[in-house]
């Protein structure tokens, strides 16, 4: 079994859920998170249209140099973009197929599309019936 952790744009969640339904793996856990990536989030007001205005402070569009930030106390140095984090546990053999579908659905070509992480899961248990591993996630 593998755990697929996906961080995606908030407005792509319905489409992502739909595509997971179609693939036959509708089970997922959704979390509302904030994060940033290689662009440090500071440029996100320009690149990420979903960014609410309240996040665009005076430092908007100014990439904060870490050296400056470490020496000075800034009110809001790190800007974080609201995202959705999905956790999906699936059998080994469908991981590639699901990752490809997730990329296809969530790709816009602009910074902020998100990341997908695949990690191993040792065991799974369905609490209701006590089924374990493969049966628990089927």
């Amino acid at each position: 079994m593998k755990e697929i952790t996906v961080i995606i744009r908030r407005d792509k969640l319905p489409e992502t859920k739909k595509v997971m339904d179609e693939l036959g793996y509708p089970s997922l856990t959704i979390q509302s998170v904030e994060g940033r990536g290689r662009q440090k989030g500071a440029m996100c007001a320009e690149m990420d249209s979903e960014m609410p205005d309240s996040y665009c402070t005076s430092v908007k569009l100014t990439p904060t140099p870490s050296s400056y930030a470490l020496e000075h106390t800034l009110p809001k140095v790190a800007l974080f973009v609201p995202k959705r984090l999905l956790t999906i546990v699936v059998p080994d053999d469908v991981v590639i197929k699901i990752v490809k579908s997730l990329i296809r659905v969530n790709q816009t070509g602009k910074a902020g599309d998100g990341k997908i992480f695949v990690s191993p899961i040792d065991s799974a248990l369905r609490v209701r019936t006590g089924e374990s591993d493969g049966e628990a996630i089927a």
Partner: protein
Amino acid sequence: MKMIRAFIRPEKEQEVILALEGAGFPSLTKIPVFGRGKQKGLSVGPVHYDELPKTMIMTVVGNEDADKVVSIIKEKARTRFIGDGKIFVSPVESAYTVRTGEATL
């Protein structure tokens, strides 16, 4: 690759994030969480707090950087009082950037 999940004090969040950014690890996800540890929460006089607010910082880095990131978080989040939090490191087999579709961090 390694996924590092650090449960830290919310007031130390800014300091940890700045230190990570300074060391060249700007990418992370933060999640506000509630939890308790070995001390089963916190008792202040007659009031018992069972679940305490923490910030979970999640980041994925290369194998060679994991120790460095852990030591930065460890150093910056430490107050030496109970409730400083925990850091968990778990394996990640592959990572994809959605924008490009490439299998890179």
